């Protein structure tokens, strides 16, 4: 049995070493695959702040993933067609700069998360799962019918956006950007979990009455967690759109929300690296099983079932041999 801390270090190390190996052996597809895994991991780490720490089972995190994606798509679309986004009351131009796009994606996601959180946190349990799903579907159908930005067909961006001082067209560079962001967010996650806010949030998940008695508002704590969580998933969405140079309503679909949730459950809820291990495993299974058989979804399904039934606490629980109660 391995300690969880060592496992976390090992996972991050491997996640960096494999693309590096691929770079020296000229295997760009492996780098793309790893970038995909890192971005999914980022989205799942974001959701895990709401789900693992706050106990908020959001079935609508694709909203933020999609908002991030469309922020990138819309800004880059206007930049590549040389049309301003808005002329009155003041001029807003499109942009191809990653940092600006990330900022827009994060701020927009924050506003959306604030609004959705304020309304959804009136409910609890299963009803919370369903109301977040409903918000996801609203955005999904809205994006389908938004003809100005491609509607059902989505938006294509011809050239990957730029980052000052880095040539993002080289796969390994873009991977490095995503990986650094993932590491920063994991660090942020650790800091939050240990901070007074994180402790209060955990308490609000376990015994909300007690938290209320000592004078903290559980709903406000959960709302803050939900917003932070949405912001991170939004950032992941912007990166995902940049990886594919394409956004479509699929990023808003409920299957997307489900997949982000599955990364977490697969890896282990409320574990620091659970979402990362889950996302990496999922992407690898998708790739290798997809190569084995046309009907690979059956094998994926059976594997997921086995993990749910026999590995409580996800893969991290299986490897470290210790369960953390999640409720």
């Amino acid at each position, binding site marked *: 049995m391995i300690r969880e801390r060592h496992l976390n270090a090992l996972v991050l190390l491997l996640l960096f070493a494999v693309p590096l190996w691929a770079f020296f052996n000229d295997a760009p597809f492996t780098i793309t695959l790893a970038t995909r895994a890192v971005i999914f991991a980022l989205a799942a780490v974001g959701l895990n702040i709401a789900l693992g720490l706050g106990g908020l089972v959001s079935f609508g995190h694709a909203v933020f993933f999609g908002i991030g994606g469309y922020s990138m798509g819309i800004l880059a679309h206007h930049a590549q067609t040389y049309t301003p986004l808005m002329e009155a009351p003041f001029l807003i131009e499109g942009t191809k700069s990653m940092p600006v796009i990330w900022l827009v994606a994060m701020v927009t996601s924050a506003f959306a998360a604030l609004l959705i959180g304020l309304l959804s946190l009136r*409910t609890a349990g*299963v009803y919370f*799962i369903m*109301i977040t799903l409903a918000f996801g*579907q609203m955005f999904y159908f809205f994006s389908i019918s938004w003809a100005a930005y491609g509607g059902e067909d989505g938006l294509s961006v011809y050239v990957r956006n730029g980052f000052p001082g880095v040539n993002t067209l080289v796969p390994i560079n873009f991977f490095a950007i995503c990986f650094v962001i993932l590491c920063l967010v994991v660090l942020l996650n650790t800091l939050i979990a240990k901070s007074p806010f994180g402790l209060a949030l955990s308490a609000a998940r376990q015994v909300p009455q007690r938290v209320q008695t000592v004078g903290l508002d559980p709903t406000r704590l959960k709302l803050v967690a939900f917003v932070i969580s949405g912001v991170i998933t939004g950032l992941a969405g912007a990166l995902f759109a940049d990886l594919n140079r394409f956004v479509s309503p699929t990023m808003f679909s409920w299957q997307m929300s489900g997949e982000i949730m599955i990364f977490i*459950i697969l890896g282990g809820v409320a574990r620091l690296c659970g979402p990362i291990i889950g996302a990496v495993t999922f992407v690898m299974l998708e790739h290798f099983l997809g190569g084995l058989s046309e009907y690979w979804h*059956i094998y994926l399904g059976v594997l*997921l079932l086995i993990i*749910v039934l026999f590995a409580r606490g996800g893969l991290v629980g299986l490897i470290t041999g210790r369960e953390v109660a999640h*409720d």
Partner: protein
Amino acid sequence: MSTLLIIEQVLNGLQFGVMLFLMAAGLTLIFGVMGLINLAHGSLYMIGAFAAAAVAGLTGSFVLALIAAMAAAAIAGVLVEMLIIRRLYATDHLDQVLATFALILIFSEGTRWLFGSFPLFLNIPDYFSGPVTLPGGIQYPLYRLVLICVGLLVAGALGLFITRTRVGIQIRAGKNDREMIAALGVDISKLYTLIFALGAALAGLAGALVGAIQSVQVGMGEPVLILAFVVIVIGGIGSIKGALIGALLVGLTDTLGGIFLPELFKLFMAPSAAQSSGSALASMAIYILMGVVLIWRPTGLFGARI
């Protein structure tokens, strides 16, 4: 925009609503009594439709096809309950979501493997095909009218079953306090299997009935599943009455919204813009409805108050 059109669309909405009810009834019982989120309910709907299409293709009998649909879905439901779902009652909702999502993958790909990727077709039987003239001179497809009647009949029968029979009483008791009814000597695990079979059979029936007016294909269950979840959340989880009212609300909102919102928008917008923003709002309408209901009543219209 005539009265005839309005009545026709209301009937279409009702037809959609009662079919949603058949899905939602099983889902709300499974959810309410066992506390289980069953994402695989849409797969049972699909199994019903495929079984019906296969049997109708072999025998040519629509009645046999319906029976086969209910039997196949019920058998699949019982098997899944006894082999897998039974282990999930004690776990939290997250594990249930993952496990039943895995079941969707297995069922969908399994069906694709058996029947191929091309949609199958299930024909409306001759004695139900063609239009019928309603009072007031409205021409309406007979089959859709039959669907409305079947749905309402099942709703009535299910209501009687839940409120009047001994098993129905046990189901309602199981919803309120499962330890107590187990202590009173009711075999709770047999009861759970029965509820699962009942819900599965209703889903299979809905799949077969709807399969005759749409195509029968892999993945047909998931859109309906999401709508059925919306229905039971609006109605309040565990309530059959709530499921019926929620289903009719969702069916009518979806159908009428799709027709009338674009028309309404045309009153004050350019036609093409009205068409696109009207249909955008229409497809969002049921989710807006659900959001409003939940914000107003956080446990649905007929759910237990927290």
